[in-house]
């Protein structure tokens, strides 16, 4: 059991399940299956057929969000059953929903409905064009801002480290930005597997519609505080949570600053409540005395 201050961090999406060792933990997989069944009754019957070995749903943006959410809830439940409790929570982008369930602000069912409503509102807003997100690694923020001077509709919507950024915008503009980034010397620049410009101003109208649903929900105070990835403030109250849910769709976030803030607050152990390794990889660029582990690493050590 960890003796150090622990943060549970929740990823937004799943890119693949090849290296995911969670299903090897019996208590996890039976609970995961139980939550999948519940989710299939609430939002999507096809979730019943999901299996990580088959790499199911990776090209289905809504279902992969559901699966990441269910993974997050299942992992955090199992960790707590084993006596591992977080002192702080954080959700990377759409990872916020599982973080809020873990923190007791919303129920599992409310989390699913929030994902569904957000996705529906975003789909209405983006149905008239082709949008997406891109990742650029190896250029500085200034280099990217220079590239974007001729592409005003593209925004840097997240910073993962000093040399790793996420952009959102129209697909055509993003493709131009990627070409320019390669020419400028980026190690890596490519489109992400999403068709939504998450965290960009293009989703503001969707967020306002989403707010109408958010404000109908009975959202409770957090029993474990959540750090905002938008402004690194600590959230506790239902009003904080509602505002964060709405703004999370269209405001930029900063995962790098969020990790630094958590370290400053004394977090010594980060546990990834999801199947991927992306968050762990990003943490390589942050110096400090801390560990970044997946559930199986925590349970097996």
């Amino acid at each position, binding site marked *: 059991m960890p003796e150090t201050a622990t943060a549970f961090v929740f990823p937004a999406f799943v890119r693949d399940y*090849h*290296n995911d060792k969670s299903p090897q933990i019996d208590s996890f997989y039976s609970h995961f299956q139980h939550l999948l069944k519940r989710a299939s009754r609430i939002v999507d019957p096809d979730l019943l057929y999901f299996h990580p070995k088959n790499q199911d749903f990776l090209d289905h943006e809504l279902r992969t969000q559901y699966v990441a959410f269910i993974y997050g809830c299942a992992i955090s439940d199992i960790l707590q059953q084993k006596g591992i409790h977080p002192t702080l929570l954080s959700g990377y982008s759409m990872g916020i929903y599982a973080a809020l369930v873990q923190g007791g602000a919303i129920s599992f069912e409310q989390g699913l409905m929030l994902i569904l409503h957000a996705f529906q509102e975003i789909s209405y807003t983006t149905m008239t064009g082709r949008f997406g997100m891109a990742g650029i*690694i*190896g*250029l*500085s923020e200034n*280099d990217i801002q220079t590239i974007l001077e001729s592409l005003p509709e593209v925004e840097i919507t997240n910073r993962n480290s000093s*040399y*790793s950024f996420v952009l959102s915008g129209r697909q055509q503009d993003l493709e131009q930005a990627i070409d320019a980034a*390669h020419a*400028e*010397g*980026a*190690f*890596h620049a490519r489109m992400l597997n999403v068709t939504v410009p998450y965290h960009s101003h293009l989703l503001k109208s969707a967020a306002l519609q989403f707010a109408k649903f958010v404000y109908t929900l009975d959202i409770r105070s957090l029993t474990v505080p959540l750090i905002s990835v938008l402004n690194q403030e600590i959230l506790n109250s239902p009003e904080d949570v509602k505002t964060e849910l709405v703004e999370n769709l269209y405001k930029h976030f900063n995962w790098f600053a969020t990790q630094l803030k958590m370290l400053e607050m004394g977090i010594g152990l980060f546990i990834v409540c999801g199947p991927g390794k992306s968050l762990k*990889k*990003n943490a*390589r*660029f942050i110096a400090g005395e801390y560990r970044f582990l997946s559930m199986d690493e925590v349970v097996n050590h």
Partner: protein
Amino acid sequence: MAQIMENTRYEVKEVVYEFFAEECEVPVSEISDQTNIIKDLDGDSLMFLELIEIFKKKYSLDIELKTIGKYAVKHPVETIGQLIDMQMLIIEHENDILELD
């Protein structure tokens, strides 16, 4: 520019092997100069970036990442051996590496 010593290549090789062994969770004994970084080790550009940062600090290198990126576009690296070769050129030539073409 950093002085290339007789044992520099050995040092670089040792750092590269140990880095990938730890990051990719494979024994050092399973890594060779012919190992393909992406296909065999599931490596990625973030690892490449981290490795460069390690060498920048180790040899106090004055080089911009984007300079290395521009060089790498023309001279793509696939294997551990190629990565060590490129790293030696970076240590030796720093920001002048592009002038090698």
